[in-house]
């Protein structure tokens, strides 16, 4: 079945298509979430080292992964928008940022809550933790920059340049922080020493990862739809849409 992809790259047709997709992904997310939580809380056994505290893993790891992934996806779409001047991809990048920032915050928050019982402190200046914090700053920088610019086209382009510069910087930051840390002393705690996982734990975690994927897609699509409406409010097709909705 051949799909005309270009058809969907126009905001108008994307709007109607995504309208159908949002509920699907939302329901998928809910179902996976319930399944994941069930496995996490009622199937997975107690960890012999960490006790019950390890159950934070079912949101910590998905959040941490999503935070990094979403930055890449955001920079990708922003770059496409800059290079090919496609409105839709820039709007996607704008829509991804808040969700990415939220997952970054969640990774930090759950990590901190996990760290207190496990390491005895909320925070250490460990490589992974520090680079996650910087990632949050990058997200916030991107959003603040876009918020500070009134003209959406300019905001798109400026944000794209920043996101691309940031993406170059992420590996550098990650390795520099890691190196900086190990130079002084062996890190007092290493995340790599997590105990080998029971399969049920792993399944639960993976289900939760999928749930976060579905959730992200749903939320981002939902947000991008609002952004499309906001930006294209003066066009004929939005006026048409309004008329249809008013009639209903």
């Amino acid at each position, binding site marked *: 079945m051949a799909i005309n992809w270009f058809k969907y790259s126009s905001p108008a047709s994307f709007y109607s298509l995504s309208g159908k997709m949002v509920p699907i992904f939302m329901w998928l997310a809910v179902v996976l979430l319930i399944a994941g939580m069930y496995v996490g809380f009622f199937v997975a056994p107690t960890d012999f080292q960490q006790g019950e505290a390890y159950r934070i893993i079912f949101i910590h790891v998905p959040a941490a992964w999503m935070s990094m992934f979403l930055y890449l996806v955001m920079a990708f779409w922003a770059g496409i928008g800059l290079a090919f001047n496609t409105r839709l991809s820039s709007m996607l990048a704008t829509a991804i940022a808040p969700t990415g920032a939220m997952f970054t915050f969640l990774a930090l928050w759950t990590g901190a809550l996990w760290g207190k019982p496990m390491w005895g402190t*909320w*925070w250490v200046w460990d490589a992974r933790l520090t680079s996650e*914090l910087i990632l949050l700053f990058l997200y*916030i920088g991107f959003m603040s920059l876009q*918020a*500070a610019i009134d003209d959406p086209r300019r905001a798109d382009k400026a944000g794209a340049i920043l996101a691309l510069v940031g993406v170059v910087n992420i590996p550098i930051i990650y390795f520099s*922080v890691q190196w900086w*840390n190990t130079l*002084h002393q062996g890190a007092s705690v290493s995340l790599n020493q997590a105990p080998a996982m029971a399969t049920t734990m792993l399944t639960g975690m993976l289900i939760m990862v999928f749930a976060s994927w579905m959730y992200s897609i749903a939320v981002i699509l939902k947000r991008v739809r609002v952004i499309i409406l906001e930006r294209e409010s003066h066009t004929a097709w939005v006026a048409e849409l309004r008329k249809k909705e008013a009639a209903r």
Partner: protein
Amino acid sequence: MFLWVIKRDLLLAMRRRSDVFTTLFFFVIVVSLFPLSVGPEMNMLRTMAPGVVWVAALLASMLSLGRMFSSDYLDGTLEQMLISPHSLSLLVLGKALAHWLVTGVPLVLMAPILGIQYDLPVEALFVLTISLLLGTPVLSLIGAIGAALTLGLRGGGVLVSLLVLPLYIPVLIFGSGAVEANMAELGYDAHLSLLGAFLLVSLVFAPWATAASLRVSME
């Protein structure tokens, strides 16, 4: 009319909501930079913490001094304020207060969380917050004098730091001193009362000095 000034400045800040957040995040980032350049040993970080937080608060407040008057100067609003029938000192007090609301208050609210990053004990966090609450308005008030004096001078941003930092030093010493005293299990009341005294004195004199500096700068 005092309220109009505050309202206007807050409105301007709200128009660019990011303004409020950026001062805050600047503060957060500077505080987070130190462990990056000093290294991650927790013991050392804990001793540094009050100093670092206070220096960061001071820098954050100082950095935003530039915009207290300069945009009003460039577009002629300040000229209009000088020939306004209202008391200039009061107008200035309004502007300093708005500056504090936009830059100082968020810092005070954020400080405890940053203190946690440096693993400070709970009581020290409390003292830190109180000392910031008393100290940051002083920073805004004194800063206003510096901002007024350097108005329209090129490189004002850096010049203002030069003028203002020496005046900030007592606040810095007693502010961070209070927290250190608490951590060393000594009394910290004296420090806080001194900060309170600074606040009162600057509330009375700073608007007046600022008004005078503005008149000089605009001549």
